[in-house]
Structure formats: structure tokens, C-alpha cells
């Protein structure tokens, strides 16, 4: 039993490291991307057809690639960025690459849910586009954004298991290496159980936070 714990703890830490560092970058990139998608639309506060078109296509293309293919596809980029293509840190690059467009679309739909009247009122009060985004759009969409982040975390967690298998480490990797290749069914079951609990905890905390923020 002690052996199992000794195996699981470092893997769990690797998983959490991969997921949360990837999440940080995903939010950092995906939030502005998603907001730009909305505000550059025709008739919105910063209409720009060219930017909107390019962003939208870029996102659609990255989203249509299966994660495994994407991972291989961007290997040169990963090497350029982190100096290596294997290991937990290297796995973060394809994870961010896959999760950012996904999150950007979620941000887009959350921001689109904000009542146009609120935007109009802000314009009438003399707000600049940046003020509208920071002081009206984001706060108004916050509850829905938190739910979006929750879904994104779970998504990254799923991808991270795949990234693990090709050298990223983490719980997914552990389950496959020991549980599948070495027939340690116990260990595989425990790993799966941990993943299930993790997903449950993330989802229910996300829901709780979103609900607490929601004042509608």
C-alpha cells in the first residue's frame, strides 16, 4: 500500500502542476482572445472585420485538430519554447495550445450573454471601450466565466492524461504505465478514483463559486 502511495503522490502533484500552470496561461491568453472576438464584431464597441475574421478562423482550425495530433504538430514550437519536448513542463505547451481556443469560445459566449442595455448605458455614461470591458462586461459575465473556467479545468485534466502518456507524467501516465502495462489493476483503479473525485470536487466548487457570484 505504501508503495502505491509513494507512486501516486508525485504523479498527482505532476498532474496538478500541469493542469494549473496550463490553466493560468489559458486564462491569460483565452480571456482577451474571447473578449476580442466579441467586441470586434459588427455593431459592437470596437468593430473590426479583419481581426475578428482572423481570430475566429485561427480558433476554429486549432479546435478542429485532435489533441494527440496537435501535440505532435507543435513539437518544434515546444522545443523552441521550453528547450525540450518531454516532461511535465513540455506538456504544458500543447495543453495551453489546445485549451486556449476552447476557453476563448466559452468566454465569447459568456460575454455575449451580457445584456446589450448595460453596454449601451455604459456608452451613454461616457465609458471608453476598455472601461466597458473591464468595469461592465467582465463583472457582469463573471459568474458564467467561472463556470467556463471550471469546464476548462476539467478539459485540461482530460488532455493532461493524454499528454502524460507521451512523456508528460502525471496520474494518467501512472495509470497506463503501471495499471495497464504491468497489470497492477489496484493502482489503476485508485488512480481513476482519484481522477473522478478531482473532477467532482472541481465541478462542485466551480458551481458553488459561480452561484455565490451570481446576483441575477
Amino acid at each position, binding site marked *: 500500500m505504501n508503495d502505491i502511495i509513494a507512486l501516486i503522490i508525485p504523479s498527482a502533484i505532476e498532474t496538478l502542476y500541469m493542469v494549473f500552470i496550463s490553466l493560468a496561461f489559458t486564462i491569460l491568453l483565452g480571456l482577451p482572445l474571447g473578449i476580442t472576438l466579441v467586441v470586434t464584431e459588427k455593431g459592437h464597441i470596437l468593430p473590426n472585420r479583419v481581426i475578428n475574421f482572423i481570430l475566429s478562423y485561427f480558433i476554429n482550425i486549432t479546435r478542429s485538430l485532435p489533441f494527440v495530433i496537435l501535440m505532435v504538430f507543435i513539437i518544434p514550437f515546444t522545443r523552441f519554447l521550453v528547450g525540450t519536448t518531454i516532461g511535465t513542463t513540455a506538456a504544458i505547451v500543447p495543453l495551453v495550445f489546445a485549451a486556449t481556443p476552447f476557453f476563448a469560445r466559452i468566454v465569447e459566449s459568456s460575454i455575449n450573454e451580457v*445584456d446589450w*442595455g*448595460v453596454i*449601451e*448605458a*455604459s*456608452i*451613454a*455614461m*461616457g*465609458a*471608453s471601450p476598455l*472601461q466597458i470591458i473591464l*468595469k*461592465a462586461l467582465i*463583472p*457582469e459575465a*463573471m*459568474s458564467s466565466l467561472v463556470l467556463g473556467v471550471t469546464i476548462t479545468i476539467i478539459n485540461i485534466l482530460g488532455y493532461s492524461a493524454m499528454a502524460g502518456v507521451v512523456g508528460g507524467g502525471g496520474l494518467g501516465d501512472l495509470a497506463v504505465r503501471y495499471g495497464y502495462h504491468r497489470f497492477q489493476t489496484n493502482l489503476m483503479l485508485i488512480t481513476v478514483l482519484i481522477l473522478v473525485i478531482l473532477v467532482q470536487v472541481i465541478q462542485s466548487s466551480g458551481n458553488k463559486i459561480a452561484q455565490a*457570484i451570481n*446576483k*441575477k
Partner: protein
Amino acid sequence: MIKIENLSKVYSKEDNKVVALDNINLFIEQGSIFGIIGLSGAGKSSLIRCINRIEEPTTGNILISNVNVSNLSTKRLRNLRKNIGMIFQGFNLLSSKTVFDNIAFPLKLSKVPKTEISKRVNELLELVDLTDKANSYPSQLSGGQKQRVGIARALVSNPNVLLCDEATSALDPKTTKQILDLLKRINKTFGITIILITHEMDVVKEICTHVAILENGQILEAGNTIDVFSTPRQKATQDFVDQLRVLPTSLDKDRIFSLSFTHNSAGKPLISKIIREFEVDINILSGKIEWIQDKPIGKLIVQIKTDMSTLHLIQTFLKENNVKMEVLNYE
């Protein structure tokens, strides 16, 4: 003072063109409560939204205190908007912010220091009588309370002008009355010019000092509320104003007249005098007294079966007594 010159607004989507405003000219005095009334689709919202350029005018000029709004740079337009409050039919409050923070919003945009914001917001909470709701969220308020928050937010940066687009249309009659009283009080206390859009005649009668009637993107008639309602110059205005005109169809429609008594004439026993002096029968078909701006206007629809010359004499007599007599039907 607001001056609107040759304002037109055309919405075009591909080949489809809608002329929402057609060469509008208006002069709105500082400190007045100016009502714009019209049926749905008349162009009321388009007109009020052109004033702070939430909608871009197609042609024409809008001057606010001699500043031409139509060709301001983005930055100066934003500064101008800070001096124009606006309230909306749907309130448009931020659901994620408390009442206090909603009212503070315009001041935060202008980066006013915190202590000053707090002082000013508390003043406004008091003005709109919502001090106890400072920490509530909009979803916890009634429609009337939400609109009071909207009014407080619109007034917090001391604007010269307040634009109201159907501000009471989502409210019940009693709440409407409260909001109108509040607007009236604000107008009296601070001398703010209020431009108010509505499709409800009663709203105009209740508070507007001036009124413009909008139909198909054109001004039918504009002026002092009492003048427009008591003595409409245009046939279309009459149709709009005179709800008493709807008479039963079975009625004998010959020689029907409308008599408008203003505050100078209401209260005198003019009808009985006519009956005696001109020896005619007067059949009263309908009548009511309307209060416009706290002044009564009496409206009578009558049938007077007599000859042309006597009718002329009656008309002259009424005119001398400040009663306007109009022919509704003569067969």
C-alpha cells in the same frame, strides 16, 4: 438649451432603407421638461438617441449649449456624455453591482476620489429615497426602485440634461406617478432640462412643459403643452390629442362641435348662457376635464342644431370667452 437642426436618420441594411427621422427641427429651452410623444415606430427612440449620439445622425446638427455634438471627436463626445444623464425603459442596471455601486459607476469612470464618491452617492440615495437599499442588488428591487436607481445614476455626475426613453413604460400607473413626481422635483430643484419620450398622453400631461408630436419621423406640432393640447393647429394633432372624438356610429352626426375650455373659461356657466341668448338646443354628447400641468382643460363634444349664421354668432361669443369651437362634423 438644445437645438436640433435638419436632423435625419436613415437606417440602411443592404438595399433596405428606413427613414426613421425626416428633417427634424426642435428648440428645447434650458430647464424645460420636453415631451416627445408618438406612436410605436414614429422615431422617438431614434431622436433621443441621436442627442447623445448613441445613434449616429445621418444628417443634421445637434447643438447642446452651442456645442455642436454632431462633429465632436470620440474623446470630447465621451466627456459630453458625462454631462448628459440617460434613463431607460429596461433600467439597464449592472446586475453584478449593488445599488450603491451602480450609482457610483459614472463617478468611477471619471476616476473621482473614493471619499467624494461615497458622499455624492449617499446624497443621491437620499434624493431617490433608497438609502436603506444601498447594499441590495438590482434583482432584489421592484421596477419603481430600479428606475429610481437609474435616475440616481443618471444624476450622480450633475448633468445639465436628462434623457428619458420610455422611463415609465415598464411601470404600473401608481409607480409611474411616483417616478414622474421625482422627475418633476429634480427639474424644479436642479433646473435640469429633461427630454422625455413616451407613447402615453397622460405622462405628457402630467409633467411636460413642452411637447412635440412625432409621426412617421416628422414633427407634426411642437410647443407649449397647454397650447398644443387645448388648441391643436393640425388636423393630425387633433386626431392624436382628442380622444373624445370617438363617437358612437349610430349617432346623428350632423352639426357636431368640440369646445375646449381653458383655465380662463372653465368654471363660467357659458353653455346655459348660449342656450338662453341664442335660443338653441344643445345636446351634450360627451365631456371631460383634463388636467394639463395642473391646469384644467375642459372638453365638450356637443351637437347644436341651428342655422349657419347663429352658429357663427355662437362661435364668436365663445371665442370672446376663451373657448375654442371646432367643427367635428357638419352635414
